């Protein structure tokens, strides 16, 4: 199949086949990453801009690395140094980028829908690198890629997403994407961070981490924002860690080819203990590598050929 979309805004609109196309394309991209000379001429002359309204070094670096390996030129606009701090609107900033003949904008924004807003108003391609609590499709794709790489397929696998589900765009996008590929997703967290309306995802919600560990193939630990405690959403880090932290003991109860994922950066000793993070079953570092491969695949599909055979 061929890719026909201008933008990648969330996974909800993608079919299972489209998701597989991205993941399959990323397999070839990962082979490029393993080469001594990591450079392709594919997107020579194309311009990719990253527009980050929230601080992030990792995701931005991942996108820029991906674009550069494909031969594209990159520029980044970080909020603090730009005219955004002078009150320029999102739309005007984006129009400026379009006027500079940028081919693709990668945007991260604290407001849900900001990437969709840009995509509606601009003819260039837009990738959502995280919008508020809404969606983080490239993170979900790289997570799914990592599990698929381990198991061959995610269908029929039981995957727990654990922690602050309410505020997590990573949890939402993973639940959407994994469900489309036939995995069983269970969202786990304290009731204050896992409100009942999250059942809109069509997946199970659970408060008891230990009970759900039975038969689980993967646990995806979410980063806990420490300010949530100050907002009264949970009483203490101690109790949070006791109920929802990933310990070695809990890790040992995963299935035979169980894996641990985390979108990073990790809070060692809060949602994940060091021993668990550094365990052989942890995919945390692999996720970072795979992030570049998946983002290469997306950039290529959006502004490159539109087919999967890139590294011919």
């Amino acid at each position, binding site marked *: 199949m061929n890719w026909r979309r201008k933008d990648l805004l969330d996974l909800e609109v993608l079919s299972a086949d489209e998701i597989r196309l991205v993941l399959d394309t990323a397999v070839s991209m990962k082979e490029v990453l393993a080469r001594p000379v990591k450079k392709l001429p594919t997107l020579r002359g194309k311009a990719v801009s990253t527009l980050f309204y929230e601080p992030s070094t990792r995701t931005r670096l991942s996108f820029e690395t991906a674009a550069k390996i494909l031969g594209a030129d990159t520029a980044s606009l970080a909020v603090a140094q730009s005219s955004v701090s002078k009150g320029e*609107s999102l739309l005007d900033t984006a129009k400026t980028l379009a006027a500079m003949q940028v081919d693709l904008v990668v945007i991260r*924004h604290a407001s*849900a*829908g900001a990437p969709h*807003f840009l995509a*509606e108003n601009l003819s260039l391609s837009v990738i959502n690198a995280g919008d508020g*609590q*809404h969606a983080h499709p490239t993170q979900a794709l790289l997570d799914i890629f990592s599990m698929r790489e381990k198991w061959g397929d995610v269908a029929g696998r039981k995957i727990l997403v654990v922690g602050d589900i309410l505020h997590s*765009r990573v949890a939402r996008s993973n639940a959407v994407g994994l469900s489309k590929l036939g995995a069983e997703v269970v969202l786990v967290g304290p009731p204050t961070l896992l409100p009942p309306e*999250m059942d809109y995802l069509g997946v199970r919600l659970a408060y008891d981490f230990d009970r759900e560990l039975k038969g689980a193939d993967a646990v995806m630990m979410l980063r806990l924002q420490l300010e949530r405690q100050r907002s009264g959403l949970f009483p203490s880090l101690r109790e949070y860690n006791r109920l929802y932290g990933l310990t070695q003991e809990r890790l040992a109860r995963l299935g035979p080819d169980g894996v641990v994922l985390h979108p990073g950066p990790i809070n060692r000793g809060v949602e994940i203990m060091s021993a668990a993070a550094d365990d052989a079953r942890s995919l945390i570092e692999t996720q970072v590598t795979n992030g570049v491969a998946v983002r290469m695949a997306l950039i290529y599909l959006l502004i490159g050929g539109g087919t999967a055979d890139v590294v011919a």
Partner: protein
Amino acid sequence: MLWLKNAYVVDPIQGVSGVRDVVTRDGRILLLGRNIPADRLADGGEMEVVDCTGKYLFPGFVDAHVHLREPGQENKEDIASGSRAAVRGGVTSLICMANTEPVIDNQALVELVVRRGRQTGLARIYPLAAATKGLRGEELTEMAELQECGAVGFSDDGRGIQNGEIMRLALEYAKITGCPIVSHCEDAALAGQGVMRRGRAAAARGLAGIPATAESVMAARDVLLAGETGGRLHLAHVSTRGTLAALRAGKAAGWDITAEVNPHHLILTDEDVPLTNSSFKVNPPLPSAEDRESLLKALADGTIDMLATDHAPHTWEEKARPFAEAPFGMTALETALPAIWTYLVRPGLLSVERLVEAFARRPAERFALRAGTLRPGAAADMVLFDPDYEETVSAERMASKSANTPFLGRTLRGFPIKTWVEGRLVFER
């Protein structure tokens, strides 16, 4: 003189719903009846005859909840543009809110609004004054004197009065005036940073939710305070089942409580909110489908007394932002009646008699305005309404300075085609 022939006249105060003729003279209704013979109108001076066959003639509508934005936010709206929008939508009397810049909490500003309204000479403009100074929810305004200057009620609309004791005092003190306290029920702590109704739709959009209880909890408080004080309470823009339960309980107890509902809460739900169209962002937010059903029933059975628009204009620049960052509010003066007709009256969810009662008679009664009826002797504020007239809602056609309506681009059916205030034709489509 004006002779409106063969109109379908709806006027609940007189128990009229049928084909009638209406004759006006000197800005007042002179006669209302079947087939008025021409000889009864002899020597009445020059007579203009309008054939109204197939059209409705309604009393001019009375909108108890409008933001005219003057003084201070004239880039969004002003009294003149808001008045033009009103008569274009069939509204001939309106009550405007005090959350301007500066806040209408003193005599001079109440007088300013009244004067500007008269100068404009279109819809009749009645200001509410703030219930507390600066809408800060701390000290009461000089209600007695504000009423003398023309205020018809008191409200901190735009925000809830968080301190229960201040609300209690406002209900007590306003007894001097006989005017209602209009409560914007919103518990700030429960509402938090929310931007749409909490629920599955908000969760799916990744938008922070405002729980229904943010409204209902304060509504229940205010209903109980109205009961305790014997004060006069009007609940603005009710949108939840919890509020309706409180309202029913208060009314059953015989307390002096009324409530309004906005058309958008009867027509749209949280599922309709597009992530990239902030014209659907409103406070209180669009309800769940279950709440919408209950609101419709409550309007039909009289639990909710009246319809009011909560017309809340904002500039394109303010609204052309990501959903969470745009201000709350939608324009409605020009679209309310056509939208109600298209989505509620035409499908049989609301009777035309109840429409006129809720959007003309009851608000006029509650705020003691001379409006809301076509009884002989009353001011000739009238709307000729064509139930089959179609128009696509467009920013270019708006008389309002703003176009932040969720109905933009939709074709509605049923529009006012002529509006008179005091017998003067002030709008014609």
